[in-house]
């Protein structure tokens, strides 16, 4: 017998759910699920009262016992917290995903060519596509690596590009390119694992594309950039240590790839070669997947007070004795002022039209833009160009007067450090609120993880859907009270 049409199903968990004035990913109208969500809706709506809550608690417990936590420092002590996980997945049909995949691949290749260029021949300045001063004034532009060749020409081995769906057009926009040390992939993999255990029947009904090939693909790329033979390449993952908020991810990825997890104090540079300190003496290292920021990598080259890195590492890197992923200096490509030029990079380097939209951006470094921004602060989002993780940001429409004035001063004092955009009304996905026991729409973004081997870009279908669990909030970062959802890309259209 065919399943009952969706509108005949008792709405159960979704009783009284309102789609509001935003694009709702799940419902086209109240009680009317979009086609990709139809099966999920039936499964969830059919649950007995209390059953969903029970499953949710099981999922939470599973995250706790596995120690999938992150550390917040707001209280000065460093407390471990669960990254809240919302059981209702976000779903994308295959055709929509394929367009995203093409758009992201195009972008990653262009960003890599840009990095090769600005740290190499610098043709883009000569061809007047972007002013040299704008690039050189990026806080994360690293003069130290100009002219330093990187293994196989790859800078952007791993990118986490943030996408949002605009409620007005229903289209995806790129919000940020994270091409330094993006984190979150471990949540994609663990969310999926917990999801398949917690809602197995719904998962099975939906035919979801798998994501668990990520670690193997990353390991393959890391091996391929080894300066010595690939076969016995010694690869390590460099973590700032147990107190880093992404420590769980570092150990998870090291374990999944079967490589050593090291801290700066485990490494030593001697004669321009990097070694690990083992119980049987020094062992040479060929590739470092580093999760330590540029400025902490080497106290002889960058911040002299850093204890997280390895003194002399940059010497070994320059000599070509060790490969780093991602490359040093990538921060110039995800600078929020440079962001405005990425469509131009795509046209310039690839001769193609950008597939994905970008959000119109005001560069406060331009006098015309600056005066517009200062006059419209209460309508705009202002972002510091070199920051990430939701820090250094002003949400004009919700900010109080004092905060707006504070930013006005900051922008005036250092205009190059800020950009502004109109607020994108993010789409929403139904999310469970444990405090009320009901489901309500919450804003989401999407961070797919792109791996680049110098030839092709591999993106595991979906990525991390981050959700602003607080009502009306548009800030999805985990450090700011955000949570996550599993992202299902369907085989077909659902």
């Amino acid at each position: 017998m065919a399943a009952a049409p969706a509108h005949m199903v008792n709405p159960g968990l979704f009783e009284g759910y309102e789609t509001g004035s935003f694009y709702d990913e799940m419902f086209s109208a109240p009680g009317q699920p979009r086609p990709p969500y139809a099966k999920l809706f039936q499964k969830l709506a059919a649950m007995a009262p209390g059953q969903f809550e029970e499953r949710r608690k099981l999922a939470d417990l599973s995250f706790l016992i596995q120690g999938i936590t992150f550390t917040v420092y707001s209280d000065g002590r460093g407390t471990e917290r669960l990254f809240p996980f919302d059981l209702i997945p976000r779903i994308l049909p295959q055709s929509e995903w394929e367009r995203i995949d093409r758009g992201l691949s195009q972008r990653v290749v262009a960003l890599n060519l840009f990095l090769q260029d600005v740290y190499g021949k610098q043709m883009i300045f000569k061809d007047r596509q972007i002013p040299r001063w704008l690039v050189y004034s990026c806080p994360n532009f690293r003069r130290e690596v100009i002219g330093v060749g990187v293994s196989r020409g790859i800078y952007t081995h791993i990118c986490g590009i943030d996408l949002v769906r605009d409620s007005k057009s229903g289209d995806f926009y790129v919000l940020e390119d994270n091409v330094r040390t993006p984190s979150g992939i471990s949540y994609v993999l663990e969310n999926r694992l917990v999801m398949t255990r917690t809602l197995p029947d719904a998962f099975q009904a939906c035919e979801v594309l798998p994501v668990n090939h990520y670690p193997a693909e990353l390991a393959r790329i890391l091996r391929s950039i080894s300066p010595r033979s690939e076969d016995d390449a010694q690869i390590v993952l460099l973590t700032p240590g147990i107190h880093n908020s992404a420590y769980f991810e570092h150990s998870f990825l090291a374990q999944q790839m079967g490589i050593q997890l090291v801290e700066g104090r485990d490494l030593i540079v001697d004669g321009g070669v990097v070694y690990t300190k083992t119980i049987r003496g020094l062992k040479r290292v060929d590739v470092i997947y580093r999760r330590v920021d540029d400025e902490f990598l080497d106290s002889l080259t960058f911040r002299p007070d850093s204890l997280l890195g390895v003194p002399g590492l940059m010497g070994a890197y320059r000599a070509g004795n060790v490969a780093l992923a991602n490359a040093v200096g990538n921060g110039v490509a995800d600078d929020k002022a440079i962001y405005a030029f990425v469509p131009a990079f795509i046209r310039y380097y690839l001769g193609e039209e950008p597939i994905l939209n970008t959000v119109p951006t005001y560069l406060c470094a331009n006098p015309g833009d600056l005066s517009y921004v200062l006059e419209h602060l209460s309508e705009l989002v202002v972002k510091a160009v070199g920051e990430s993780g939701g820090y250094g940001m002003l949400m004009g429409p919700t900010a109080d007067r004092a905060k707006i004035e504070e930013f006005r001063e900051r922008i005036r004092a250092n205009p190059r450090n800020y950009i502004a955009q109109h607020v994108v009304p993010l789409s929403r996905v139904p999310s469970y609120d444990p405090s009320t026991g009901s489901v309500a729409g919450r804003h989401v973004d999407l961070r797919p993880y792109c791996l680049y081997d110098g030839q092709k870009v591999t993106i595991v279908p979906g990525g991390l859907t981050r959700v602003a669990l607080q009502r009306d909030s548009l800030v999805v970062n985990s450090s700011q009270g955000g949570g996550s959802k599993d992202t299902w890309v369907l085989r077909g259209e659902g």
Partner: protein
Amino acid sequence: MLSRIAESLFWLARYIERAEDTARILDVNYHMMLEQSQQSYRLRWEPLVIMAGEEKLFRSLYGEANAENVFEFLAFRQDNPSSIVQCVSKARENARTIRDRISREMWEDINGLYYTVTRFRPEDEIAAGPHRFCDLVKFGAHRFHGVTDATMPHDEGWEFLRVGWSLERAEMSARLVDVQYHNLLDALPSVGAPDNHQWMAVLRSVGAYEAYHRQYHSAIEPEKVAEMLILHPQHPRSIRFSASEVQAGLRAVSGSLAGSYANEAERLAGRVVERLRYDRVDEIFKQGLHGYLNELLRMCGAIGDDIARTYFYYAVVA
């Protein structure tokens, strides 16, 4: 294997062992106390604090030792670095820094134990008595040994765990015998029968009570108890057995053969094992138990230092 990882494995095992030993001693003493008169009350709790090596700290926090404050001190106090909760927390911290190198089951087990012990409310447990809490820690440690044995490759990393918990166990057993013996000799009532209950408690705290009876077929005698805990070749909590385990683990790491040694730690471990193999308990008592045990403790400390020098630390290169 990275030196740091070897070091974390070594300490992970030591902390688990220390938590278990402390739980055993607390539990057994508490039950003995319940069966006893009030007279020797003070004597049964003070030694526990001395044994943990935290006498000074205890005196600064409490007055006279009693069942409640010793339990609180040894089980829960955050500022007592040897308390059970602190040992479990530190074991977990070490496990966390090497969770990519231990099995998922080991990590989840120790993480679960951490959440269990930190969720107890000290005031409830003090009111209820230590049994429930101590039992849970004891079986938590046993489960960890079992999970480790069953899920981790018995490679050199496993040997560092074995060396860690065996060395800790040797030291704890030595302290246990030393402190209890000393205390009982000083405190024996001038009239009446010697207090065998204390020695039963000592045997029970290392799980050797039944083994003692099978071995000696006699009443509990202090010398025989000491013999069992110091010299027994097979009991897993005797000092001799534990020292042999340390030696075996170190040899497995270095690959050195019987009769030879590859480093100072192995040389000292070999010396301890040989001495315990050929010493007799009457000789030990003749030369003085306290001095003998102190010498063993000193050598255990030196073994720990030499392990660190050999495997964990790199001299700073100028």
